[in-house]
């Protein structure tokens, strides 16, 4: 397989296992590239990418931007949380206005689930979803699985635990799709009020006892509590959340297992995990960040061949 089966990266749901493997093998090459003294390749020369961030982002945006620079793409950035909507401009109009300036690829983050898919149906451009509401965040899931593969040799057969607010998390959903496609076992853990009632039908286990879940897993992916997405209080207090689901050194020692600890960032230190865990040998959080650039380079490189000029 030399080509992706899709023309856009809208979600992991639409990818085949072979697509993911192709992205990983391509990312391997780019990871070598970004560790060289000269980190830049001309792969995307003369291709213009617009980064449209309708929702706040620091690291995903930086990671995409850096990946684009390493690939020698021309970049324009547009950040405006909901501003076009506020002014009455539709998403299609906003994007078409930008595309009229001859842009080839759009990387978009948006607060609405399905926004990337909607855009791909209505504008002529290659679309990369950088997160759409609580739907998908495909590049995050790719870099997470890539990091597991790097650390443990493969993803297949590994037991991956995802902890926290599953209900509002696009990272969780994309991770579930990606890990399942690659043959990992997935377990979800968190307050019952933050785990969708029907999530079990996606072929994942649900365990509300954090210690039992830790005992089970090889990898623990600690999701950030997304206070900004909650319009109701799904649990009484952060303190009580931490008591039950915060990952501490003591809990890790209790399970007597070498568990790989991940976090998509940004960390609420002392909430999802304590500082000593975040900075420990178990943690691959900074590898995730580094791999993010390589994986995003791979995605954009592979999608560039789909650009119709």
């Amino acid at each position: 397989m030399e080509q992706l089966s899709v023309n856009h990266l809208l979600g992991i749901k639409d990818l085949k296992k072979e697509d993911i493997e192709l992205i990983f093998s391509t990312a391997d090459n780019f990871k070598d590239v970004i560790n060289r003294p000269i980190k830049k390749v001309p792969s995307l020369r003369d291709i213009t990418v617009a980064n449209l961030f309708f929702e706040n982002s620091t690291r995903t945006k930086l990671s995409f931007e850096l990946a684009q620079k390493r690939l020698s793409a021309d970049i324009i950035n547009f950040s405006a949380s909901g501003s076009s909507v506020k002014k009455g401009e539709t998403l299609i109009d906003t994007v078409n206005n930008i595309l009229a300036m001859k842009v080839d690829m759009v990387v978009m983050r948006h607060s609405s689930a399905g926004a990337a898919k909607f855009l791909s149906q209505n504008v002529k451009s290659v679309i990369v979803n950088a997160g759409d509401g609580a739907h998908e965040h495909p590049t995050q899931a790719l870099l997470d699985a890539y990091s597991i593969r790097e650390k443990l040799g493969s993803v297949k057969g590994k037991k991956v635990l995802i902890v926290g607010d599953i209900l509002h998390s696009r990272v969780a959903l994309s991770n579930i799709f990606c890990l399942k496609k690659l043959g990992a076992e997935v377990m979800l853990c968190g307050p019952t009020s933050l785990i969708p009632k029907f999530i079990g039908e996606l072929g994942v286990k649900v365990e509300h006892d954090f210690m039992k879940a830790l005992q089970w897993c090889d990898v623990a992916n600690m999701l950030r509590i997304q206070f900004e997405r909650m319009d109701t209080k799904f649990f009484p207090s952060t303190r009580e959340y931490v008591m039950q689901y915060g990952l501490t050194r003591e809990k890790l020692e209790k399970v007597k297992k070498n568990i790989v600890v991940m976090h998509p960032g940004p960390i609420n230190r002392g909430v999802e995990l304590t500082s000593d865990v975040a900075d420990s040998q178990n943690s691959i959080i900074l590898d995730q960040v580094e791999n993010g650039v390589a994986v995003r380079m791979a995605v954009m490189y592979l999608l560039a061949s789909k650009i119709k000029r």
Partner: protein
Amino acid sequence: MDLLLKNAHIIDPNSPFHNKKSDILIKNGKIAEIGKVNSKGAKIIESKNLCVSPGWLDVHANFCDPGNEHKETLQNGIKSAAKGGFTGVILSPASNPIIDSKSGIEYIVNQTKNSVVDVYPTGHLSAKGAGKDLSEMFDMQQSGAIAFTDGKSSINNTELIKLALLYGKKFNALLVLNAEDKNLAADGYINESKVSAQLGLKTRPIIAEDVAVATNLSLLEYTEGRLHLNNISGGRAVELIKEAKKKKLNISADAAVLNLVFNDEEIMGFNSNFKVLPPLRDEQSRKALVAGIKNGTIDFITSNHEPQNIENKLCEFDHAEFGAAIIENTFSVLNTYLNKELSLESIIEKISIAPRKVFGLEIPTIKVGESANITLFDPSEKVVINEKSLQSLSKNNPFIGKTLTGKVLGIINHGKLSA
């Protein structure tokens, strides 16, 4: 003008000619002859598989007039209804301003006088649609309001529902409620299921309906009033209504066409034309609804016609408005998608006779001497749905681009033919 319907298959359980093929002569708006008819000068209507039935009635349509004439107008809404085979339409009071007083009712009555489609206005149950106080239901009824409802906005004020049920008893007011618990429905927009688990869209779970139906039925039992539950969408509600009917409570219910033919898998592609209220449910709920229609627990089927301009639909799914404008295709959709589950005869019954029974309207019959209130259709003819062929001003129709089976050929009402 005299009309001669040639070799028409009559579907009317109240007619001596039920399920027979015959010619029908209509003179001066009345059925003059049924049998082998030769009439010179009459306009002849024929089709390969011409069927006729008592004129259809839609009980839940929004024509958006006054206030949102860019979505639909009364006059064009009437044309859409006629194209859909409906000789009667009961309008939702959700215009702008809303209809919660005599003047609003009179506007609809005056604007729709003498049209081929009978238009029946409803008034808001609560004053200003605020869900707090009673509206002047008696006064509105005197001016022509056929029922009282807050439309899609469910009333969660149990005291108000109780008062309305009690107060309306004296003048036989029919209350139509959309049963949904607002706290549980929150501001969600799709069913909670395996589908929602994959989409990250905010859910409007079926429990919101279950709880509200149970509450409303308790209030009905207490007040011994008269209640119709509008657009039921799940199995638990069907069970509860069935029990209530067994207890001889004065209860009736309906389901919307899209909820009967589709499940929430349609949402997988984020198609906003399937963003409707109540949301499409899972297959189990859909089957329970169809079973409810079959065993009579759910009395009839509505179009749930809700026009929306393109800007309200061609946008992010969560920003899109609810509704589908499908009054024109309601029959074709039922005939295409439900023909294995429901017979043609029962589909017709559920959009003609059954709703009239509930709303206390005279039931047209295909008998000599009766006024002709008739829908003409051919259940085997194919129709291609495209934007241009749609009469509705709004094109939020999920069937655009599709071919449906079953075509409405026209309606006859008040001595007029619309075909």
